[in-house]
């Protein structure tokens, strides 16, 4: 009953409004044209108002006049989209690496035995790889200078005389001098456990050698 009442109210308003607008129209040859358009408008409005009774939606999106100018070909659009996506991926990976390096550095500095000056992280860099962005290695740089409140510094050991398995420093396959003291092993173990990676992927090197 309420819906019928609302429909009748709407129809009364529309009809009264239409009559008044017709009175406004100029009495020329344009009169018929404007009257035609107003008749169409009344049909649309009445259908929309009546649609609420039959629970249908007659409110359409108004069609815009289409321009005939040809747009760029689909392949170009797709190519641009892929280029943009890869650029965004690279940017996201760089920001992720920077954030992770800061985290690692903060974690490493929690211990007071070694003066950790810098941290670098390595991630899997192939975008096609399903494990793209996974943490693949951590390099911690330690300095010889003592830290405030620390108990000791890194021992200066001649790199050529160190063998694997002993405390001190060793040279890896790339020639980087690895710090191999107990404190360095402990630090590497902590970082490896925190990020759930093998301890071999965490390297502690002397600052300026990486």
């Amino acid at each position, binding site marked *: 009953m309420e819906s019928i009442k609302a429909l009748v*109210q*709407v129809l009364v*308003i*529309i009809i*009264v*409004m239409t009559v*008044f*607008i017709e009175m*406004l*129209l*100029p009495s*020329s*040859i*344009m*009169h018929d*044209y*404007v009257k*035609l*358009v*107003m008749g*169409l*408008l009344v*049909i*649309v*409005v009445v*259908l*929309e*108002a009546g649609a609420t009774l039959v629970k*249908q939606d*007659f*409110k*359409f999106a*108004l*069609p815009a*006049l289409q321009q005939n100018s040809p747009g760029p070909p689909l392949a170009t659009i797709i190519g641009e989209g892929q280029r943009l996506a890869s650029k965004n991926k690279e940017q996201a990976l760089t920001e992720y690496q920077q954030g992770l390096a800061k985290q690692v550095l903060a974690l490493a500095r929690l211990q007071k035995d070694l003066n950790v000056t810098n941290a670098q992280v390595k991630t899997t860099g192939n975008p096609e790889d399903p494990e793209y962005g996974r943490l693949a290695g951590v390099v911690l740089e330690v300095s010889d200078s003592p830290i405030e409140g620390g108990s000791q510094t890194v021992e200066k050991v001649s790199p050529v005389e160190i063998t694997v398995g002993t405390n001190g420093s060793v040279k890896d396959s790339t020639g980087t001098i690895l710090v191999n003291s107990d404190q360095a092993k402990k630090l590497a173990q902590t970082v490896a456990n925190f990020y759930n990676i093998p301890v071999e992927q965490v390297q502690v090197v002397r600052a300026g050698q990486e």
Partner: protein
Amino acid sequence: MDIFQIVGLGMVVCVLAIILRHQKPPMATLLTMTAGIIIFIIMLPQITAVFSIFRDLSSQANVNMVYMGTILKIVGVAYIADFGSQICRDAGEGALASKIEFAAKIIVLVMAVPIIVAVLQSLLKLVP
């Protein structure tokens, strides 16, 4: 009241135009044109008030404002075209007046295209 001013202006301009038409016909045309523009400007605030009332009514009746705006624009186009064509006819340029009316008709039909499409879609949706 405005109507006295408008009628008085019309009468004065009419007499002047009759006098001028015999001596300088172009001046008579310019005079009537100016008078028409002045009357149009005088009535403009009242037309605006009427249009704002129509907008309120249409919002009460849940009429899409795009439709209402289109209708008001069409009324405006009709008035302006009528105004221009009457001036041309008064100046003896019946052909030009017809062209103005032709352009106004096309513009009105183009503006009515969204409403026509909406009617067609409504009718098609009603068909089971």
